[in-house]
């Protein structure tokens, strides 16, 4: 717990991670990550889904071996899971067939301790985390919050120097998550945990500011550290303070700047056809536009405000905002979302008017949609298999990205009545009236 504050517990040096696409081509997920977990700090990793933050956490824990670069744990290279590092999982990862006590004791299996010592240590971890009385319960009898408490107890029972937490509260409802966060922070502030430093992956901006001493923001494709934001507010922190809000806004600004920059960059390549499209349904887009047009926002709102008002996390809110930005119904800038003139018309329009406007914008600003229409017009029978476009996209995008992009384009195109799609035959076809 005490020690030289300058030394790092885990030090990642020039870490790169490359997966292989199904076609065998390399797919970089992490590029040149330099990251050190300092003594006594909680370090946050914040990023959109697909930024490789969970992969990074697993590399730090020795669960995945990086393609290149070094992981140093307390001065020696890390070659695999090792004593002193414990992981808390997003999905809790409890063994359903073991009771709470047995689950916690399982954390000690590798140490081959005497039976009484195992029981004693498990019992004290259970007491600390507030699970007393639940020892003989099976995980399925517990609520989500209690399950994650077991997850914490199981990690802490090994007396880890370093605790790695992979979105530990994101599978919980808002109230439960808040309780667990507070309890964890109380233990941390009171120094009751045996742990020296914590690495936490999250996509909840407020959570990061509330808990961390330092937040690293990851950019996507490939994942790299885009910014480092220190949080020096005294604990316990108050979400309503101006300084707190200031840091939250700052983080949103960084995130939007990254998003806008990457949209701009990819629109230039290959006629924009291969620009990845966010997964956002038309219903959600309409909902956000309506919300934005109505008071109190009147056409403009901070993302941080929207996120807490709509109870959406970064991963939920950003795809919708991004889609609106791409379609030019709204503009994403400096952590705020501002409705464009067309967005205002869309918000007021009837179903038919909305469809017409959406169709125009889709053809103008989403080159892939226009491309599909063009191909359908040129081909005999005015139809084309889905595979044709997927292969084209996969030349430039990863498999999941290509699929997601095509799925969004399909959903948007169907709504706009630009083209039809038959999922059974996996076939796009032109709609005669639209041609």
């Amino acid at each position, binding site marked *: 717990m005490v020690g030289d504050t300058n030394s790092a517990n885990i030090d990642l040096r020039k870490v790169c991670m490359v997966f292989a696409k199904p076609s065998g081509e390399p797919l970089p997920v992490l590029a040149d990550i330099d990251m050190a977990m300092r003594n006594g700090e909680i370090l946050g990793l914040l990023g959109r889904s697909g930024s490789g933050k969970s992969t990074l956490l697993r590399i730090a824990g020795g669960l995945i071996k990086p393609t290149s670069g070094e992981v140093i744990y307390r001065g020696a290279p890390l070659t695999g899971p090792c004593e002193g590092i414990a992981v808390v999982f997003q999905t809790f990862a409890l063994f359903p067939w073991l009771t709470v006590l047995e689950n916690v004791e399982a954390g000690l299996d590798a140490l081959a301790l005497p039976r009484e010592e195992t029981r004693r240590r498990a019992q004290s971890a259970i007491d600390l985390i507030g699970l007393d009385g639940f020892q003989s319960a099976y995980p399925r009898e517990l609520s989500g919050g209690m399950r994650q408490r077991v997850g914490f107890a199981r990690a802490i029972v*090994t007396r880890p120097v370093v605790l790695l937490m992979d979105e530990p509260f994101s599978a919980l409802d808002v109230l439960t998550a808040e309780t667990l966060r507070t309890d964890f922070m109380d233990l941390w502030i009171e120094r009751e945990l045996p742990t020296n430093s914590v690495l936490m992956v999250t996509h909840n901006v407020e959570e990061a500011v509330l808990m961390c001493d330092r937040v690293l923001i990851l950019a996507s494709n490939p994942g790299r550290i885009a910014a480092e934001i220190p949080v020096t507010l005294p604990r316990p922190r108050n979400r309503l303070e101006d300084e707190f809000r200031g840091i939250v806004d700052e983080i949103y600004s960084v995130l939007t700047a990254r998003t806008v920059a990457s949209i701009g960059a990819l629109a230039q390549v290959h006629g924009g056809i291969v620009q990845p499209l966010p997964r956002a349904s038309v219903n959600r887009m309409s909902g956000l536009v309506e919300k934005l047009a109505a008071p109190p926002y009147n056409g403009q709102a901070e993302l941080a405000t929207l996120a807490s008002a709509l109870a959406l996390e970064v991963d939920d809110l950003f795809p919708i905002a991004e889609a609106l930005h791409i379609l030019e119904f709204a503009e994403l800038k400096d952590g705020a979302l501002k409705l464009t003139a067309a967005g205002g018309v869309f918000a007021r329009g009837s179903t038919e008017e909305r469809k017409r406007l959406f169709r125009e914008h889709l053809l103008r600003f989403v080159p892939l949609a226009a491309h599909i229409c063009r191909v359908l017009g040129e081909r005999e029978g005015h139809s084309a298999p889905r595979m044709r476009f997927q292969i084209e996209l996969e030349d430039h995008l990863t498999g999941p990205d290509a699929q997601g992009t095509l799925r969004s384009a399909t959903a948007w195109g169907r709504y706009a009545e630009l083209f039809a799609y038959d999922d059974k035959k996996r076939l796009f076809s032109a709609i005669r009236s639209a041609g």
Partner: protein
Amino acid sequence: MEHHAEVLRGGVWHQRAAGWRDLAAILLVLTIIILVGAGARQMVAPLVAGEQPEISLSPMALPAYALRTTLRMVAALVASLIFTFTYATLAAKSRRAELVLIPLLDVLQSVPVLGYLSFTVVFFVALFPGNVLGAELAAIFAIFTSQAWNMAFSFFQSLRTTPRDLDEASRSFRFSGWQRFWRLDVPFAMPGLIWNTMMSMSGGWFFVVASEAISVGDLHIALPGIGSYVARAIEEQNLVAVGWAILAMTITILIYDQLLFRPLVAWADKFRYEQTAAQAVPRSWVLDLFRRTKLVRGAAAPIGTMMQAAARARLSLPSYFRAGDDRVPSSRLLDVAWFGLILVGLAYTGWRLLQYAGTELSWADVADAFGNGGLTLLRVAILIVIATVIWVPIGVAVGLRPSLAEKVQPVAQFLAAFPANLLFPVVVYLIVRFDLPPKIWLSPLMILGTQWYILFNVIAGASAFPTDLREAAASFRIPGWRWWREVMLPGIFPYYVTGAITASGGAWNASIVSEAVSWGSTRINGSGLGAYIAQMTDAGDYPRIALGIAVMSLFVVSVNRLLWRPLYAFAERRTRLD
């Protein structure tokens, strides 16, 4: 017997292996069978299968016979479990082993067990000359083959679909291979494994009955058991004794189910991976008894503690058992060498097979076998259609009434587990009595035991049909025929396909004992591939038995690949909502 573990579990059916692997594996299996058989044949002549006790037809002898039969079942179960744990683990943890083991398993699943019974009997009897142990082992082996492949497949599938977070947690806690096996692998696989074992049990009863009394050429074996009892009753044309045997079997199966499987299923409920509480928790009075009785619990506690300690021990297995680090692409050179070794092995076996077949068989034999195969195929197809027309409407009617389904479902499961070959003599007696044409009237025997799979799968499907969809259909007043076509049939289709796969696989197997039957000295031959194999077995004509098995395997594998798998994939795709 074709059960296909993953289908029965309701999982996704992945195309596991390419076609050439099947062919290669068929080749391998056949060659091994033939070589073993050919080797053993030379030993048959001087061999007398020990002193065999006379089978008594007195009903008083039946309880003891039932016990002997049950013991064989238990022994086979233990052997299957050991096989499952080793074979499937090896296949799941080593990429190179998987390349060979899994296609092999796939084919073994499709080879008719009763077909190679003759080979295994001769082989085991030759292992223990003059001793009844050989014949016992052969019977146990027959049961083993009816369940081991399914169980191994189920276990293999579970090992490959271990939830990622539990896998990571296990690695992060640095479990040893042994600890991981008992902490994660086995518990996770348990529900599927028990379910598959239960499903295989019907095949087990069927084969234990068929394998207790068997004649290969001049070798006649009759092990004390219900199967031999029935065989003796047939010889003596004693219909009353057949009735006693049916009764004894019914009671045996019920007891076996109550004492072994109900408790197992109830106990295994805690291994369900889904974290939600189940609506209907399986119960067992035996298990409750064990859990509640202080005396029993006290006696069991030290055993439990010992087993816990054993599972906790950090035994280290050889490195290829360890998960996680062996799936990385390893050296190319070793891969090439391994592949080369497989090819050489295949080439050698292929050459041996051709050499052997060339001297013993002619093209006319092949044509004959294929002709008979066509006839059996026709029978299976017609029977499945008839069973479908009868059982689908009934199954739907029952499944939509939960209180009725609750009563009918156990009966259907019991009927599926009951060895239909015990009922054959009754039907055969009627055919002889009324002089019916055997080519037609022997056919229903094939599906007598396996049609119930269609029924209880359809009941399960109809019970699981979402209530809101039914209510929507009712509120739109969708009329009769369209209700069937647009609402109910698509809803139960995946379940139906699962049942039909099992039913048709079982029918092929049953054809070997049902296409040629006897009543006393009267022999009835319905012709077909099953009759062909049965005849050749009686004659001890090994090359033609092998030919028959090969052709039957080919038919079964082809029907699976060309009909059932595409249908299943279609059903999967059609009924998914996301």
